[in-house]
């Protein structure tokens, strides 16, 4: 077991979808996806693991229990798939709200809400805006306790263009980016 010389670390191949070592994919929640991704990234390994000749090695379970387990696993995976689908749909439906809030007659701030569902780092986004537009930009919590980026200055159009850009980069082309303007700052913020 143990060598006296320095032991080289073992290289484990991790699945790119579920992050488990590939042999555990079948117990993961996204087995089907794991399989397809492995097939494209590492066809040799895929062949050795999932081809018909390589059937489960020496399971001690009775056939009945094995079947039961596979069934429950399949159920779980199906559930997870549905859940993901639903989430994706939700994501497509959600929209980003860019709000122009008038401070005085000629001054306005822009607040961006509804970004958190896309996994955008708000803090760094505020920073990029601050340097991009050379204004103050910060992350604040709105009435619904959700983060939003507030930028000083009337930069709504530029923000919209920028946001659609980064969202498209993430593969969410259909997301609506909406601009509204608001006269009184105390109006309730609406995030959908």
């Amino acid at each position, binding site marked *: 077991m143990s060598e006296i010389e320095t032991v080289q670390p073992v290289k484990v191949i991790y699945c790119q979808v579920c992050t488990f070592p590939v042999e*555990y994919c079948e117990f993961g929640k996204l087995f089907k996806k794991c399989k397809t991704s492995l097939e494209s990234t590492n066809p040799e390994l895929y062949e050795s693991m999932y081809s018909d000749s390589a059937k489960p090695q020496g399971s*001690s379970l009775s056939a009945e229990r094995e079947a039961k387990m596979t069934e429950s696993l399949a159920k779980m995976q199906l559930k997870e798939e549905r859940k993901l689908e639903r989430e994706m749909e939700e994501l497509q439906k959600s929209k980003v709200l860019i709000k122009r809030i008038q401070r005085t007659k000629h001054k306005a701030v822009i607040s961006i809400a509804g970004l958190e569902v896309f996994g955008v780092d708000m803090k760094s986004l505020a920073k990029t805006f601050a340097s991009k537009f050379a204004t103050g930009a910060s992350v604040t919590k709105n009435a619904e306790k959700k983060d939003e980026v507030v930028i000083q200055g009337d930069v709504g159009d530029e923000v919209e263009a920028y946001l659609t850009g980064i969202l498209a980069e993430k593969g969410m082309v259909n997301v609506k980016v909406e601009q509204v303007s608001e006269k009184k700052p105390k109006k309730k913020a609406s995030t959908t």
Partner: protein
Amino acid sequence: MFKKFTKDDIHTRSNVKSSIQRALKSKLVAQYPKLESTIDDILPKKSQLVLYKCEDKIQLYLIDNEVVFFQQFDELIPSLTLVHKYPDAFPSVQVDRGAIKFVLSGANIMCPGLTSAGAKLPEEPLEKETTVTIYAEGKQHAMAVGKLLMSTDEIKSVNKGIGIELFHHLGDGLWMYHE
């Protein structure tokens, strides 16, 4: 332990002093003697160890943003990535195929899963409270890390109830944690 673990659970991050790092190193070797030959690869002398103090007094030790090991009380527990790299360095047990599903959802390991046909307990008896890595039937790599609640002899004789308390498993909060 890491069923739910997110960035919010990290309270402070700090760099570990090199003197303390040395002490940790010797402690790690004392706990897992087989690590001795590779300890310099795991904790290189010049590396900067980072300590994350988290919820429930859990402390994570990271190098290059990768959790190497963690501790809750006194015991140092290797993370699964470390176990995968140096599988022979830690005491291990094996569970049968039927148990994999439950272990991967974070269940403690029951004795029957350790004594049945597909399972393996190490030949030399392990004491109670030993930190063990958990392997699965037909699989090559470790899938969890836990602590023996009974000695292996007891597990064999009693064969009932919880045998291993699970700390860390594939797919838990710590496994999923990435900066």
